[in-house]
């Protein structure tokens, strides 16, 4: 039993789960090393594919471990890997949330919130900026982003509308470009 794949998956992902700070990018290199080079659960090419899928899909990119678990050990592997990466930090954050709500921080809570807020906003801008400058969609990406901001700031439209619009605009570009002929 100690040699079963799901046990090994737990052993790899449980410790890593505590390092998934700031979006899970921080542990990607480690995941690749452990799962490709050490355990040979998947090839380098598979890992790259998994990475692309997890970026393209909805939800946190950390879901890449679900795919890895699945490829390494079927459904049981997927469940083990997913639980290992998500549950420990969730419990940790639950405890923090509870302390906050139970007023363990007393009268300092509001000041704590006030001090944290600007850092939070700065991080939102930073995250947007890094994707915008590395994504490679060119001028059209910037235009779609700007249009999406305008729409969301000035109207009460559902966020799915700009998302669908962005997809359609890029699709339109593809149809109009001579390469597709």
């Amino acid at each position, binding site marked *: 039993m100690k040699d079963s794949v799901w046990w090994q998956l737990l052993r790899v992902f449980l410790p890593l789960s505590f390092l998934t700070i700031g979006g899970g990018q921080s542990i990607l290199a480690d995941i690749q090393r452990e799962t490709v080079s050490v355990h040979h659960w998947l090839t380098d090419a598979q890992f790259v*594919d998994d990475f692309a899928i997890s970026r393209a899909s909805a*939800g946190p990119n950390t879901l890449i471990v679900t795919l890895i678990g699945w490829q390494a050990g079927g459904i049981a592997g997927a469940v083990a890997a997913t639980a290992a990466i998500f549950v420990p*930090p969730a419990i940790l*954050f639950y405890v923090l949330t509870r302390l906050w709500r139970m007023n363990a921080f007393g009268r*300092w809570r509001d000041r704590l919130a006030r001090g944290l807020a600007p850092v939070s*906003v700065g991080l939102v*801008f930073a995250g947007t*900026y890094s994707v915008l400058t590395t994504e490679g969609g060119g001028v059209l990406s910037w235009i779609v982003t700007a249009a999406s901001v305008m729409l969301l700031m000035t109207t009460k439209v559902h966020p799915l509308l700009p998302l669908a619009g*962005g997809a359609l605009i*890029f699709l339109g570009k593809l149809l109009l470009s001579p390469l597709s002929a």
Partner: protein
Amino acid sequence: MRDVWRVFGTIGISSFGGGLSGWMFREIVERLRWISPEEFLAGLALARTMPGPNVVNLAIWIGYRLRRTRGAIVAAFAVLAGPLVLILILATVYERIKHSITVHQLLMGVTAAALGLSLSVGIKSFQAAARSPFYATMAVLTFIGVGVLHQPLLPIACTLAAVSVAWAFFLDRSDER
């Protein structure tokens, strides 16, 4: 409780191209008014500097605020359930679509629009967060350090958060009269 399931489930499954916190802000803070912008921002800062995906942490934060422990569990599960199923489906069809230019372009478009969603939340919450020139400076420094200079998130965010919180504790007299 069914509302918690529905709202977080919808947010989870529609969160293509990132911008998840943007979705949450728009739906939960602006439309449903379940929590205030200040509470949301405090939760977001903690969610990003603690282990675990931001979305799951934020779901726990908001879910607990709404329905205590059960709310936290339901919100966290709901926000992950859709994406979990979806990613397994995507993985099975991936070989067939991986070289498709159409799929690639679609994703670029969605990502660009999702960035707009994040950005609009940043702009809106800047007013709430930057109550004085000091806090505005903190926000700008965080952006420059992590975004422009590509410094590691954790040390930068923790250092600036410590400075900012210390200011709020000891020097900010704006709420006294």
